[in-house]
């Protein structure tokens, strides 16, 4: 097994916890001292930095939400003067203002190191040619992967997102061995490659590092079969750092969270109660080394489970399962919670069904109607109405038995659902409530 930083990645739990506690105390102290919003929250909760003496004391501290980042827009949560900030990123807000994050020189350095760690875990080394097809810009994906790949010593192709034919040309001519982008964009690249008559078997591409949106195991299989690569899930979010917070190892039984830098909990998104290991809930992250914008108990809204069991790769860091969905992307349809990723899992379990789908929500006579549009590929098309109707019924039945609500399925023409070059838009909620 190859590691980037074996000492940290394989640290014995008791030593790791000592390191975490020391860093947690520093983080809480600095936040209280330098961020007025944190001090106000902690004072209101009657907590002083000195009250944090064990890792369990973390639970006494108040949560931080995306809303607080907006309330303190743009730099209100920074713990250092702007003269110490060397980089600014922002995450796109679907509503209201974006959340803005800053990085000190040391933060950028830590991030590059963690991203290099992630790339090594996904089988890359200094001989790799890494094509970064995440967007470069305010989004953390592009520059995050870029700095990590450079730190590793690999050759980086800063392709950024979009211009798919050129992406494929670069892969062919520059011999890219690793592709970093969103999983939905990877599938789109595979599709364009197919349309261009290019056989991916002729490429040097070996692996992909895919993240920034939830994706299913079925989608992984689909990408691996279409591009002839190994697909690794990477996790990160700009509020915490960017890509590289967690990464799969070759055993791919969950994503190892870089616990020397992040302290994680799982909570019930409604009651905010901390749940025991193995429970499904919302991931909450506390940064342990961030200087510019420390985050204490940040509610990620990502739904997952944690597992501390031994991993054959030798890494001791806790594993999170693939993100099941977002606690706030979660759709409530006729009172039932529905994750778009659950719909994807059902669809991709049906042979021949392509992972291109759209969920449309309408409200008619005070009743929610959920329509799932599925593209008819050549694999599932038939000249007989009966066979297409059987398929239609099968999709509807399987969705209904998994989601426990009735679903209107609509078969649509291929490529009629818009393709994304970044995060896929899967839901159109037209309900006027």
């Amino acid at each position, binding site marked *: 097994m190859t590691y980037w930083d074996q000492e940290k990645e394989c640290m014995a739990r008791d030593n790791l916890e000592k390191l975490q506690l020391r860093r947690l105390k520093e983080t809480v102290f600095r936040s209280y001292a330098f961020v007025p919003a944190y001090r106000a929250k902690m004072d209101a909760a009657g907590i002083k930095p000195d009250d944090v003496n064990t890792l369990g004391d973390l639970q006494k501290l108040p949560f931080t939400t995306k809303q607080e980042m907006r309330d303190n827009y743009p730099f209100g949560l920074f713990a250092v003067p702007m003269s110490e900030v060397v980089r600014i990123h922002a995450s796109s807000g679907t509503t209201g203002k974006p959340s803005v994050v800053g990085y000190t020189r040391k933060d950028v350095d830590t991030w590059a190191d963690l991203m290099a760690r992630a790339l090594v875990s996904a089988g890359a080394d200094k001989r790799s040619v890494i094509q970064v097809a995440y967007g470069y810009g305010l989004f953390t994906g592009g520059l995050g992967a870029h700095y990590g790949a450079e730190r590793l010593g690999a050759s980086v192709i800063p392709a950024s997102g979009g211009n798919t034919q050129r992406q494929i040309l670069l892969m062919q001519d520059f011999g890219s061995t690793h592709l970093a982008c969103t999983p939905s964009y990877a599938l789109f690249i595979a599709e364009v490659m197919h349309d261009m008559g290019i056989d991916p078997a002729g490429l040097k591409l070996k692996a992909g590092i895919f993240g920034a949106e939830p994706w299913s195991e079925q989608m992984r299989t689909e990408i691996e079969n279409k591009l002839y690569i190994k697909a690794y899930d990477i996790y990160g979010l700009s509020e915490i750092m960017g890509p590289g917070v967690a990464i799969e190892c070759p055993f791919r039984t969950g994503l190892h969270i870089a616990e020397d830098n992040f302290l994680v909990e799982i909570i019930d998104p409604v009651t905010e109660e901390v749940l025991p290991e193995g429970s499904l809930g919302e991931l909450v992250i506390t940064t342990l080394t961030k200087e510019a914008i420390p985050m204490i108990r940040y509610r990620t809204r990502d739904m997952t489970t944690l597992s501390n069991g031994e991993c054959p790769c030798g890494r001791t860091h806790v594993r999170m399962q693939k993100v099941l969905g977002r606690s706030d992307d979660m759709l409530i349809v006729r009172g039932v919670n529905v994750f778009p990723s659950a719909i994807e899992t059902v669809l991709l379990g049906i042979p021949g069904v392509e992972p291109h789908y759209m969920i449309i929500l309408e409200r008619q006579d005070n009743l929610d109607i959920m329509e799932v549009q599925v593209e008819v590929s050549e694999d599932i*098309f*038939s*000249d*007989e109405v009966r066979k*297409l109707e059987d398929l239609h019924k099968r999709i509807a039945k399987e969705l209904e038995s998994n989601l426990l609500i009735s679903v209107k399925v609509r*078969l*649509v*023409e*291929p490529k009629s659902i818009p393709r994304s070059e970044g995060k896929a838009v899967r839901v159109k909620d037209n309900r006027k409530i």
Partner: protein
Amino acid sequence: MAKQISVFLENSSGRLAHVTRVLGDAGINIRALSIADTSDFGILRLIVNDPDHAYKILKDAGFTVSETEVIAVRMPDSPGGLADVLDQISEENINIEYLYAFLGFAGGDALVIFKVEDIKKAREVFEKKNINYVEAQDLYKL
């Protein structure tokens, strides 16, 4: 035996016009057609003068297309002509998935396109019973 081109169509306005325009612009002549439709989608089935070219043109235009083997049967254009053929087919337990009529005629006879479950068996039966079917190359020329 003949090649039928089948095209998936969403039930929205202008889709059929689009398919036929794509074919027309490529100089493809439609010899027979039928549309099977449900409330959500339709399947357009076509016999054309150059099926392989039509298949490629439609695929390039982004449609979901398939090629299906069908049989064109020639029968007298007189009352009971189709019934006679169908009787003979049912005696031999050939299952018909669907059928539709050809546009125009062949030497005073009518032509009907059959999609059957077992095309090889159907062919044998047609030969045994002296049912007149038209070979592909002759059909595309009609």
